[in-house]
């Protein structure tokens, strides 16, 4: 029985679909590997920064210098982590439902413990990111970013 043009079309479409699916899977694997390498590199750089400060703190001659160095160290580490999170995560790429089928953002009311979805992966509806001063665990003045909502 001769193959009809419709049958040929559907056969080719299925092959093309399989090819695209395989390419997407390879891209995802490559992205995961790159993210993992980036993460290790970032952690190593952070460790070196912390080690340098710790060395300087040990070598400091007085308490005032030690306190200043500790505060500077904490602030630089906080900033590096925050900057990386922002660069990595403009639309929360690592924590979307697509990655692993689990919504870790809390933006889906069915999976999270509240909040509402804005569909874009950004801040939950009605919330703002706000810098709030804190006293850190070593008595240094520092700050953290909080999600706040005005009722």
């Amino acid at each position, binding site marked *: 029985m001769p193959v009809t043009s419709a049958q040929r079309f559907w056969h080719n479409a299925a092959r093309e679909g399989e090819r695209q699916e395989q390419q997407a899977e390879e891209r995802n694997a490559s992205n995961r590997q790159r993210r993992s390498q980036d993460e290790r590199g970032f952690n190593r750089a952070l460790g070196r920064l912390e080690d340098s400060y710790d060395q300087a703190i040990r070598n400091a001659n007085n308490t005032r210098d030690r*306190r200043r160095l500790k*505060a500077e160290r904490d602030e630089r580490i906080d900033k590096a982590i925050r900057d990386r999170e922002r660069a990595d995560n403009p639309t929360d790429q690592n924590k979307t439902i697509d990655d692993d089928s689990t919504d870790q953002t809390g933006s889906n009311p069915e999976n999270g413990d509240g909040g509402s979805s804005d569909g874009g992966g950004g801040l939950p509806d009605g919330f703002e990111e706000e810098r*709030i*001063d*804190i*006293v*850190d*665990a*070593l*008595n*240094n*003045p*520092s*700050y*953290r970013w909080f999600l706040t909502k005005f009722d």
Partner: protein
Amino acid sequence: MPILRAGPWGNLNSPHEDEPAVKDDQTNIYPVNCARGDWPNQPWRLLYSKNTDIGINTGTAALGSPIVAEGVIYAYVILDFNWQATEAFDVTFQWDMTSTQPGSGVYPTLEWQYDTIEGTGDYYFDTPLESGTIDITLPASTFGTFSAYAYGIDTYGSGLLVEASII
């Protein structure tokens, strides 16, 4: 565990007050410090009051900054501040009282006390030597308030200087 900042001024009953335009002890609110450190937008400071038989003067001063009150018969310096800390830390209360007339003397008294919003506190009173220092350990607290004074009376009422600071 980190704690949220209070202040910038306040007291135990009202830890979140704006900085007052007029800084004196009549407002009953004082600067809120981060242990011995400076906040990014507010250096460590205390509210002082210089009280003598000549007059009263108030203002703010940094850690380690000596406040000197000059009187004829009596003079005293009051130092007040609040703190927040995740660990206990030390401050030193320093005083120095001198008569401005040779042959005269000074009768000194001093007192310090602190209270925390968690309910802890301590109190000390003494009639010490004319100069000296006392180390005081202030506990970790989400909000604590400290007050000290150094008080001198000139034996002959011929003039005296009373200096005090928190170091």
